[in-house]
């Protein structure tokens, strides 16, 4: 059986389409787009955790830093964090907040320099949470260590206790804050592991996205509890080191190449 007559028929029909009909089709397509778009958007939102749903300990969010890929002269992660969380510099380095910083570590014996981002390590047993008198420093069950800005009294004991120098005290009034990143004079703050993005379902942090955009791939965000996640697979295959592992804090941020 030949398919030739059918093809001819189709071509005939195509030739018959008038300009009016083409416009009508385009209109219908646009209408369909307008009708479907909110549905598609809703579908995306459904991927994120609804506000009334508690976070779960089934996840433990963490980060893997591959220092072999981290470039000494690159601070894309720092800029991205500042941009994402509205950390505007006030021109006073000693008191400006820094949630993530580039740390260079030089071996005195060999002179070898390793460059890496340093931020809150989101410990399983965070000293900042232990010492906080009001419980404002807390650890979510999914492993993210945060500061409750409503109950932080600004005593700075957590800054004394943090082994990673990861926290900043807000030394002056702030303006132009971002809605998803509330900050305030007199409170302590630190890396939130982009909790707003995590809760939104982005499954990534601003620093890791920026690092990937630069093509360095030194930062990998993921679920340490999920054996199928990329971060778990890489850690299983290549291993990872905790900074100040001697303190037994079981950090959520692990490093390779140190």
């Amino acid at each position: 059986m030949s398919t030739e007559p059918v093809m001819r028929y189709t071509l005939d029909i195509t030739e018959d389409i008038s300009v009016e009909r083409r416009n009508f089709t385009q209109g219908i397509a646009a209408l369909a787009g307008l009708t479907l778009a909110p549905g598609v958007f809703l579908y995306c939102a459904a991927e994120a955790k609804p506000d009334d749903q508690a976070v779960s300990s089934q996840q433990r969010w963490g980060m893997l830093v591959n220092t072999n890929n981290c470039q000494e002269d690159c601070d894309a992660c720092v800029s991205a964090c500042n941009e994402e969380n509205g950390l505007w510099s006030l021109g006073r380095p000693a008191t400006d907040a820094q949630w993530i910083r580039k740390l260079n570590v030089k071996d005195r014996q060999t002179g070898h320099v390793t460059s890496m981002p340093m931020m809150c390590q989101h410990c399983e047993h965070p000293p900042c949470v232990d010492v906080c008198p009001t419980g404002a420093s807390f650890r979510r069950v999914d492993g993210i260590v945060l500061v409750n800005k409503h109950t932080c009294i600004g005593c700075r004991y957590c800054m004394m206790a943090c082994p990673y120098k990861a926290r900043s005290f807000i030394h002056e009034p702030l303006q132009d804050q971002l809605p998803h990143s509330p900050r305030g004079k007199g409170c302590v703050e630190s890396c939130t592991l982009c909790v707003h993005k995590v809760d939104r379902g982005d499954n990534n942090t601003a620093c890791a996205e920026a690092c990937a955009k630069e093509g360095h791939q030194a930062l990998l965000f993921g679920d340490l509890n999920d054996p199928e996640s990329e971060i778990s697979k890489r850690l299983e295959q290549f291993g990872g080191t905790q900074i100040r592992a001697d303190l037994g804090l079981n950090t959520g941020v692990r490093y390779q190449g140190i």
Partner: protein
Amino acid sequence: METVRFSTIDARSAQYWVLLGLLAFGALVGYLAAHHMDVEGHHITGMNNQIVWGFPHVVAVFLIVAASGALNVASISSVFGKIDYKPLARLSALLAIALLVGGLIILVLDLGRPDRLIVAMTVYNFKSIFAWNIFLYVGFIFITAVYLWMMMERKMNRFTRSAGFAAFIWRLILTTGTGSIFGFLVARQAYDAAIMAPLFIIMSFSFGLAVFILVLQASYAWTRRQLGDAIMDKLRVLLGIFIAAVFYFVLVYHLTNLYATEHHGVERFILVDGGIYTFLFWVAQIFIGSVVPLALIFVKPLNQSRHMISLAALLVIAGGLAQLYVIIIGGQAYPLVLFPGMEESSSFFDGVVGQYAPSIFEILLGVGGVCVALIIVTVGIAILEFLPESLSDKALRLDPVTS
């Protein structure tokens, strides 16, 4: 001893009101300084993200430590049964409460959010020694007030020993808590040491007694009451023992650190090349705060003069402030070690000695807290019978000093 009579001081003199006015002015200026810090933010102070606790904490911790130590004189009479000290017990307890209140006011006003004091008083994390300290401080004021009541109300005198014992145990726990603020800091090279708790207890003995001696001498000199040599001699020797004990604990702390290679960095910083901290340690803490007072107390003929006891107490206070400056600020100035044995550098002052110089606002806040403590004592002795009318050898039935 039963014949010792207590009375309020005469508060009608111009001298009294000038003193009270000066103290009130100091307290007001301290409050205004704290208010300015609160409005502008801590960037106007010398504190930053590297040195997060500054001069206000030095003064506050000094006052809190001295508060528990000031109670010792009362404890010696009530708990250890040395009746010679009994006439001093009331002032000892009043001074303890006053110093603690002064210290706590400084701590609260230095908070980033002092307006949230109610949060600190109602929401607790019981794993935090800070949270425990809030209970210990409030409890200390309450127990010491009850102790005072037992001492001052004739009908309640039979409970004095029990109340004194409770206050003594409480004060030991309180200073353990204060020392543990630093002892429990696992990550810092200069802290994370169990000896911090007993070190702070023995520091409290010394600082508290020094403050007590000065307040006692001033209040008796300015009210023209008799203060005998015998009681002053007892206090003098006691202060000498406490100074030597603090010196011993400081020695053990540093010797232990010096034995462990991992602590050589911070020891070198404090003892050899830490600039202001090394200077304060050797010159202010050890020489001016320990060696000179010990000489004034134990070496003849220096120790024959009443003024030399005052000077020794003053130097102990100066040395104590220096010691706390070295512990609190020096301990933070030494860079945090993330990678032992490596050189660290970053935009966030990793591997760099923290820079700190107290601002005028911090100093005024500290002085303000001291003024509040002294106001409580000054008003207290004018409205209630804290001071014996005479502490002469004859009134106390003590043997005159023979040396």
